[in-house]
């Protein structure tokens, strides 16, 4: 078994200083990606274990934003009242991840930092217009999740920086859905995923966000499909038209999990499923449903 240097800092400043001092160090959060990846390596890099950093834990609502500590687990996201109110689409993504074991340990920050094109947090966070709070030895900065990943596994994160929190703007009236397809329901990485969020007034779409996961090197937002929805009711014809646009926009590859034509076709199918769910009448007695009651008319 491998032995490597383990650091267990107590403050963000200490953690960043350690990362700066150890150029080959890796951050260890829940470990559900890191440990799998290190498993077969003979030599392990130093690990900076971050569970003792209080600022990375917890969820709060502050000045019109929902702040999710980077160490929020999928299970916490799935169950919290705050995420149910303000981040419906992220809750749906959380429900799809791995298994209970993985959801109990895997964190939101770890999923984002991983920058996998198939990572389930990214499509959901981008339709939420979420931002990341990044802190290094010198400064703290905010970066939109949409600007964070540059290529599979590549991000704008500097080596001494940590993702401290994920910030989601609180917006009334929006409703979202996340739909994904894997080899099987549990313990499978997404072949294709679709996240969508719409704002409607009297059943008419005022604004929307549509993203596709696992069909391009990074998550793809599809403004052309959003334009199709604008000013329309979510009728079968409108959903079909938007589906055709996302199929054309996808840039999928053939790999071990799926092939190009199937992935492309499934983008449209999953978008239609997601939109059909949003077109259903909402339940006004459900306190977790922040949507405009006028949605019922659709």
């Amino acid at each position: 078994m491998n032995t490597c240097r383990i650091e267990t800092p107590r403050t963000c400043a200490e953690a960043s200083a350690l990362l700066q001092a150890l150029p080959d160090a890796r951050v260890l959060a829940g470990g559900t990606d890191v440990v799998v990846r290190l498993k077969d390596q003979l030599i392990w890099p130093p690990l900076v274990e971050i569970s003792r950093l209080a600022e990375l834990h917890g969820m709060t609502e502050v000045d019109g934003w929902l702040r999710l500590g980077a160490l929020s687990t999928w299970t916490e996201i799935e169950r919290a009242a705050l995420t149910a109110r303000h981040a419906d689409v992220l809750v749906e993504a959380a429900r799809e991840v791995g298994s209970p074991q993985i959801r109990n340990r895997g964190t939101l920050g770890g999923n984002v930092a991983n920058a996998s094109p198939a990572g389930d947090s990214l499509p959901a966070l981008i339709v939420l217009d979420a931002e990341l709070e990044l802190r290094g030895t010198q400064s703290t900065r905010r970066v939109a999740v949409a600007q964070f990943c540059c290529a599979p596994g590549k991000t704008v994160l500097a080596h001494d920086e940590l993702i401290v929190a994920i910030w989601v703007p609180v917006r009334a009236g929006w409703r979202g859905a996340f739909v994904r397809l894997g080899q099987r329901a549990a313990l499978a990485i997404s072949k294709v995923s679709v996240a969508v969020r719409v704002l409607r007034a009297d059943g008419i779409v005022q604004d929307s966000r549509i993203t596709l996961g696992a069909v391009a090197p990074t998550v793809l937002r599809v403004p052309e499909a959003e334009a199709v929805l604008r000013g329309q009711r979510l009728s079968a014809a409108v959903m079909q038209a938007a589906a055709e646009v996302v199929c054309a926009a996808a840039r999928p590859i053939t790999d071990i999990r799926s092939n190009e034509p199937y992935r492309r076709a499934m983008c449209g199918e999953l978008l239609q499923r997601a939109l059909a769910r949003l077109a259903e009448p909402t339940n006004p007695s459900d306190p977790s449903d922040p949507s405009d009651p006028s949605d019922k008319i659709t």
Partner: protein
Amino acid sequence: MMIRFTLNGTAVALETPGSKRVLDLLRDECGLTGTKEGCGKGECGACTILLDGRVANACLLLACQADGHEIVTIEGLEHAGQLAPIQQAFVDEGAVQCGFCIPGMVLAAHALLAGQPQPTDDEIKRGLAGNLCRCTGYRKIIAAVRRTAQAGNA
């Protein structure tokens, strides 16, 4: 590094590499071999333990991450020679064949019932989705969980 944690109700302090997997710590240093290694990468659930009351894969958990926490393994479920109700239900339903998946399966069922005392069949399947069984076909496992829920003494 010095790792302090609670193991099946008893406080433990061990000097061990912080990068050692909890799976190896339990099996090799604590002599608790009920926790199994199947895939070693989070996919089969044979290594399932309870960490602070929630299921976790011991194959993905490093010793430094257990420090200060509470672990329950399959050995910790029985009390004074008496099987926990969920264990007895596995026996009564004949839900065990080779047995390799069973420690993890029982702990996952136990944690599920602690959170949802009356799960639907879909909730049972979702609660056990991280545990693979090559033998039983799952039906009797689900029946054992249902039986425990019905008896209301999870």
